[in-house]
């Protein structure tokens, strides 16, 4: 029956891709928020247990500029910790790849730093270094750097032997081999690590602010829960989420613009 076949496409409803990719998630999100709002009002949940989205919005915006400064403080700690992770992880990965001796010396230390719970380390560091930016950046770095070392090392070591042989046939020095063959090859791996590191940097910054800070979103969460201002705490958590998403997208944008051959989203290795 040819007529039946011809009618088929009109039976199932196929949405245009932009509707599916943009409109559908937004609608789903709005439904969720609406359901939350309705549930809180319907069951008369006290605000300090679960505030309604509308309450979160009004309470958080009521604070005004200070929320913005708290966000900036967290952003600064996050970025400083992230940059520290890059500055230390990349040379560390190169050292591990370049020499079996260094690798044998460094790797156990790395594993130890990863086994120590950083949340437990934060108060210790703050006693030692004082309640300033430095211990917060160190905690952020400690939380964020490990995946970057691991994925960069993996990339440097995954360089195909043919490319290494090409380098040797051109009489490349060990430095040239690293800088012009291994490192470019590892770029997608590096970005895989950077995307994990930026997400962890936000986590590290907040953990550090819980313990020793007089500003920042972590501090805001800490103080507002202490006074049962749950709405504000929720507001801070939401801002943190947005911060994490934006920073992740920025890293991905940098990758797309400056390293178009890299496609770490296709071969994420961490």
């Amino acid at each position: 029956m040819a007529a039946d076949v011809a009618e088929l496409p009109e039976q199932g409803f196929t949405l245009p891709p932009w509707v599916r990719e943009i409109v559908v998630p937004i609608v789903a999100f709005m439904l969720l928020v609406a359901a939350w709002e309705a549930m809180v009002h319907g069951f008369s949940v006290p605000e300090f247990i679960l505030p309604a989205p509308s309450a979160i919005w009004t309470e958080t915006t009521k604070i005004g500029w200070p929320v913005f400064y708290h966000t900036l403080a967290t952003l600064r700690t996050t970025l400083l910790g992230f940059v520290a992770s890059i500055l230390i992880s990349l040379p560390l990965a190169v050292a591990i790849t370049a020499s079996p001796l260094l690798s044998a010396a460094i790797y156990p230390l790395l594993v130890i730093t990863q086994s120590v719970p950083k949340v437990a380390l934060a108060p210790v560091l703050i006693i030692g270094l004082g309640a300033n930016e430095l211990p917060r950046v160190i905690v952020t770095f400690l939380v964020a750097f490990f995946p970057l070392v691991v994925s960069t090392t993996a990339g440097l070591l995954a360089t195909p032997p043919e490319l290494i042989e090409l380098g040797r046939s051109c009489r490349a020095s060990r430095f040239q081999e690293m800088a012009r063959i291994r490192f470019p090859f590892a770029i997608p791996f590096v970005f895989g690590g950077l995307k994990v590191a930026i997400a962890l940097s936000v986590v590290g910054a907040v953990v550090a602010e819980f313990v020793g800070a007089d500003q920042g979103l972590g501090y805001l969460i800490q103080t507002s829960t202490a006074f049962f201002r749950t709405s504000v705490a929720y507001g801070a958590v939401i801002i943190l989420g947005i911060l994490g998403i934006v920073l992740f997208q920025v890293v991905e944008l940098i990758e797309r613009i400056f390293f178009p051959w890299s496609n770490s989203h296709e071969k994420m290795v961490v």
Partner: protein
Amino acid sequence: MIVLDGVAKTFRANDGSAVPALAKLSLSFRPGEFVALVGPSGCGKSTMLRLVAGLIPPTAGDISIEGSRVTEARSDTAMVFQAPTLLPWADVLTNVVFPLRIMGRYTPESEDKARELLALVGLAGFEKKSPRELSGGMQQRAAICRALLIEPRVLLMDEPFGALDALTREEMSLELLRIWSARPMTVLFVTHSISEAVLLADRVVVMSPRPGRIAEIIDVPLPRPRSFEQEGLHEFQDCAQRIRSLIFGNGGRRSGIA
């Protein structure tokens, strides 16, 4: 003069067992000579080239080029690998000038020369393309340009035309002969095609496998410049038949090597 003196190579496989790739062999190549290497798969042709290139050390024996022992890659030796081996993140032009940059021999003229070579092998207009956007045969041609650009005195080519169709292959063979006659260099050319070996080479080294040995070295008495018309000559046919019988046993005709 390239001299291989009692050279043997044994690889150590991952499981620790010894893989003899080349048995003790001695031979030499005259400067400016065009030598073809033929033999069944796995008989050690690539290994021989990598030894001469200084990329791997021999297990026994010595290799020397113009009197000096080969212990590492030389700046006057270029290799065309069996696979194109282009840097995936760099465009074609950057790939072609890569060895010059690494050797610190890059000059403003290098890029023009690279473009000329690319045009010569039919890749004009592809300079800014990524290797991904090229066919296997086009990638291999870019790799040939990369080797030629350093103006080597010794050119090692490992099945350079393997990924090309028959027509492009013939065109490239003649182009290579033209480049070789314009600028003297010693060429070691691995191929699976017997007629290609006879057409190109002054001498054909026929190898036999397990472990790799030299079965015979055949002089090709055809005059230069060579052309495909010579394929009809009985000298050409005699050479080809001789090589064929060395590889497959007397009069044998088997598939695998054309």
